């Protein structure tokens, strides 16, 4: 496997480290924070591990039926696909890979290098898999359990490769393979292990040899500056049309559209990822609040979920801020005040976040945990929190995540104190 020691892999890994160093650090910081919180609550290391690896360990729980297990595994694969999609630019190697596309590297060489970079991008997720594996070994689970976790890793890699190579047609196949493995767990150990071995071999072979000409890096070759499509010549606007143009081209509307485009064109993967995470929080809070039956714990759960949703979605401020800052070389010469984009960024991020905040408030009201007026107040409060969370990104890249987590914690405490 000479490609695994090649300069190409070294350059790709270095590029990935260069452009994701802070992001990767933050993910590890978040993991460390959760572990620290667990430790401060007096849990053992094993409990802590099991809490973090719960999404994987739940898959092995014999209490769950085949249907639930299939759905859960497909959801896990979808999250892994989103995880890779969110890091597409960094994993694919940037514009340099478009130049490399003109050099005589084989599809397999490029794919294997791409998968090596993908493994680095997946390191926080693989850490959780490692913990889940340790947990199964400590509990002396049957061999099919740790092996299933390894099959899930291979299938997740296959799903991620399909996402990165923009081949959505492969995803149903990966999902079906996942369902077969998840369903096989209910069979006797020998049969389950055979199924796992077969699926693992298939996934490993597909990853190693590939299934087509596209590869991780060159699938998105237009990473070199995409030629701007020549617009069709537009007819000269008539007077009423010109007036309408003037109305639609109001400066504030242009600025708002700019923020909108950054989020939904340039950062669509990140926006979808954060929306999916927020939807996950909403679903989790709904489940817990229903278990609590609308008592005081339900309100606490909903408020915590609102805080977490605001914190999660506020990450978009960083992308927006960086994009605006990068364009300052041009926009700085325009007659605009500095940080002119802030209110528009806030409006767009709030538009992304509000459905989840409002959904959580409506949920609390429906469960009888809160009256309509205070429920509306939580939405307003969470929007104010979102505004507050936009501030750290303006002044500090390095500590924004930690500051935002502290501010969110304070907000949850204040809201809990004032509403209970």
């Amino acid at each position, binding site marked *: 496997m000479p490609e695994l020691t090649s300069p190409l892999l070294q350059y790709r890994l270095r590029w990935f480290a260069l452009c994701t160093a802070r992001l990767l650090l933050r993910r590890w910081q978040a993991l460390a924070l959760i572990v620290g919180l667990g430790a401060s609550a007096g849990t053992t290391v094993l409990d802590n591990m099991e809490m973090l690896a719960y999404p994987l360990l739940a898959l092995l729980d014999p209490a769950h039926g085949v249907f639930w297990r299939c759905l859960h595994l497909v959801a896990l694969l979808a999250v892994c696909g989103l995880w890779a999609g969110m890091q597409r630019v960094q994993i694919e190697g940037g514009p340099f890979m478009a130049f490399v596309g003109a050099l*005589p*590297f084989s599809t397999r060489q490029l794919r294997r290098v791409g998968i090596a970079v993908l493994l680095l991008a997946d390191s926080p997720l693989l850490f959780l898999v490692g913990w889940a594996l340790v947990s199964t070994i400590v509990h002396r689970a049957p061999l099919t359990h740790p092996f299933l976790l390894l099959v899930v890793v291979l299938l997740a890699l296959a799903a991620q490769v399909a996402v990165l190579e923009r081949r959505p047609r492969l995803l149903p196949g990966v999902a079906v393979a996942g369902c077969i493995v998840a369903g096989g767990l209910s069979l006797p150990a020998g049969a389950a292990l055979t199924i796992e071995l077969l699926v693992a071999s298939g996934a490993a072979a597909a990853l190693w040899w590939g299934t087509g000409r596209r590869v991780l890096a060159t699938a998105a070759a237009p990473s070199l500056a995409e030629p701007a499509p020549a617009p069709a010549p537009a007819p000269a606007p008539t007077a009423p049309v010109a007036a309408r143009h003037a109305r639609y081209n109001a400066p504030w509307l242009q600025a708002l559209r700019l923020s909108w485009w950054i989020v939904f064109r340039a950062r669509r993967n990140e926006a979808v990822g954060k929306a999916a995470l927020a939807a996950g929080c909403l679903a989790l809070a709904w489940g817990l609040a229903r278990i609590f039956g609308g008592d005081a714990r339900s309100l606490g759960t909903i408020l915590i979920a609102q805080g977490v949703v605001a914190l999660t979605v506020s990450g978009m401020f960083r992308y927006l801020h960086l994009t605006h800052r990068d364009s300052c070389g041009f926009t700085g010469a325009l007659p605009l005040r500095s940080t002119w984009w802030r209110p528009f960024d806030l409006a767009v991020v709030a538009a992304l976040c509000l459905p989840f905040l409002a959904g959580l408030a409506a949920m609390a009201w429906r469960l009888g945990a809160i009256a309509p007026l205070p429920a509306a107040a939580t939405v307003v409060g969470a929007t104010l929190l979102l505004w507050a969370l936009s501030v750290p990104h303006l002044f500090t890249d390095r500590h924004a995540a930690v500051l935002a987590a502290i501010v969110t914690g304070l907000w949850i405490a204040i809201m809990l104190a004032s509403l209970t």
Partner: protein
Amino acid sequence: MLRFEGLCKSYGSRRVLRSLGYSFAPGAFVLRGPNGVGKSTLLRVLAGVLPADSGKVWIDGRTLHDDPLAAKMRLAYAPDECPIYPFITGRELLDFVAQAKRCAVVPAVQSVVERLGLAPHLDTRCGAMSLGTQKKLMLAAAWIGDPAVILLDEPSNGLDADARAVLAALLQEQSAQAVVFISSHDQAFARAIGATVIEFAALQPAA
């Protein structure tokens, strides 16, 4: 040496290349056409950087679709931008391209490096180079592996007058044994190479 037939490429619903075809013998050719017509897209498709929706490309007798490695061994491409990783030095880039083409940075390439005035910058990281120096580096890399087809996108952009003259002389020399296919708006540069000017519209089949 360079031939393509029925090349089509679309970005979404917009068709950029419509069944383009042409055949080139060794020589210098400058592709001309208005901005946004698809010149850079064509070069990227010919370089194998961007897959065509349909059509075939032959590089020195090998099809880019069926035998991409052999075709790319005989090909050199320098894009308009300089998409090199900022942490790579000039020397590392040249070594990297040579390794990919399974050859060495031979004295002829070193001569190109020296004529372009790149020698003092070879140990500088690309991120610390000026745009012109980065451009020269990409152009020098095009001489590695004795290519039969050289595709250059706006090669004279960002070069000083001396470097432009050197590049024109180098391309003129190379065009005796290889196809030098350039996209450029620079008419003086095209004249300096002694290139045949081809209008983009001429690559399309007659309606």
